[in-house]
């Protein structure tokens, strides 16, 4: 049984169908990547899973339990942690406070939280020295590290990562993806990426979304092998031929 299974998911924004029957499944221990252009519905899929967007129809089953329609506070308690687009670090709180708040889905004493946050810096050594800096003072790469660290503090079974590479310098993107390959040892990851090359490099399975529908799914090699998909979503030929 997959850890997460989505069947025929439909999400509406007003009258517009943002998702028009999406079905994906994520097995425990995998990294699954959702690819697609802007507006294809990648972020909406994650928002529906974490409870920020209410599904109009369809099933979202996590660990054998239907979670469609639950609120975000309930869903994160079940073990799904969503690191949303734009990082959303609390600007007026320090890095460490941001990270400590990541465990708000669990009951932990403050002293233990502080220890766990310090331990988190072992995985993210680059932000250790910014522990007391306020959120708004950080660079994009640092914000992304804090956002992932905060997401992991929930001790999730499934981590939803939305565009972790967006707006980052290539060397920082590589650092972020090194961390993703560390995370996958303990945590299942559903990753949304526009950077298909990086996104598929860490994936066990990939899906391509197009205007609210899954148009293709398969192993990273199979996706790479599909000429049309390569041209449309994976870069390379598209720019040359267009």
């Amino acid at each position, binding site marked *: 049984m997959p850890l997460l299974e989505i069947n025929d998911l439909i999400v509406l924004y007003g009258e517009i169908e943002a998702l028009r029957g999406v079905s994906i499944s994520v097995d425990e221990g995998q990294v699954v990547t959702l690819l697609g252009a802007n507006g294809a519905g990648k972020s909406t899929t994650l928002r529906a899973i*974490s409870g*920020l967007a209410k599904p109009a129809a369809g099933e979202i089953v996590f660990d054998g339990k239907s979670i469609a329609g639950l*609120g*975000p*506070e309930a869903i*994160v*308690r079940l073990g799904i*942690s*969503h690191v*949303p687009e734009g990082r*959303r*670090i*609390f*600007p*007026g*709180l320090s890095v460490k*406070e941001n990270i*400590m*708040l*990541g465990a*708000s*889905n*669990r009951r932990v004493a*403050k002293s233990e*939280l502080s220890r766990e946050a310090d331990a988190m810096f072992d995985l993210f050594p680059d932000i250790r020295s910014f522990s007391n800096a306020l*959120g*708004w003072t*950080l660079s994009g790469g640092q*914000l992304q590290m804090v956002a992932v660290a*905060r997401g992991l503090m*929930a001790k999730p079974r499934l981590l939803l990562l939305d565009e972790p590479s967006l707006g980052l310098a290539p060397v920082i993107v590589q650092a972020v993806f090194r961390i993703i390959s560390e995370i996958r040892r303990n945590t299942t990851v559903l990753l949304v990426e526009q950077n298909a090359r990086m996104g598929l490099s860490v994936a066990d399975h990939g899906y391509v979304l197009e205007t609210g529908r899954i148009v293709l799914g398969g192993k990273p090699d199979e996706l790479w092998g599909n000429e049309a998909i390569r041209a449309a979503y994976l870069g390379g030929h598209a720019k040359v031929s267009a």
Partner: protein
Amino acid sequence: MDLALQLLFTGIGIGAVYALVALGFVLIFRATNVVNFAQGEFSMVAAFLMVVFAVDLQWPYWLSFLLALAGMALLGAIFNLGVYYPLRHRTFLPVIIATIGASILLANSVLAIYGPQPQVLEGWFETPGIQLGPVYLDSQYLLIIAVTMILVVFNYWFFEHTMLGKKLQATSQDKEMASLLGISVSTMIMITFMYSAVLGGLAGILVAPILFVSIQMGSTIALKAFAATIIGGFGDVAGAIIGGLALGIIETFGAAYISVPYKDGFAFLVLVLFLVFRPQGIFGERVAEKA
């Protein structure tokens, strides 16, 4: 010089009342992005609760005080559920109008029960005050200053050193993200309203023996407190307290040295000067709220 010291003491005392109400304004504004126009009525209702418990029922002052504060926490909760919660997904305008409506409702409910004549509430202490060198320290003003100091320290400790305080801050900065982390946003906002109602109520109870207890007392205090939040820097906790104290001192000195009838005018003159020359206030936010 002796007069100046005396005025400074009085000004800080009355400024502390503005500071408490201003703090309530700021905390609700930060949590909900809405100015609560019923904040002043919280002070008025609490003062009337004191009249009910301590004067009408003749219960001990300390018990009346605790009951009035408990009543304010309850009123804050009801206010949240009845006024803010149903409109929480709307823009700020319907919410602001609802708070104005609630303030009219509260004032007129009290009017219906007590009528228009002001009530008198005695101070906590029998001793009217003590003479300290050239300055006469009125016991009620001393109480106001002491309670405000304790609350400022408590407020700092609560928001900076407890996880609940951090969760409240996180909620005021980004509700959606807070909910993604498992923070119960509706609980955080409930706590904010209860706490702010208690702060406003405390101000009303403390200032009641100095003023009369009337249905107008809320709007007067709220206007000054609102001016204080703008002078201090809107949305800033330290600004609300400094702004409140500054306003109390300015109007006390203005009344003594320039003109008593224009006492209220000085507060608003300072407000206008700030709006023209330093609209962000003393502690104005230079940083964009959302990074």
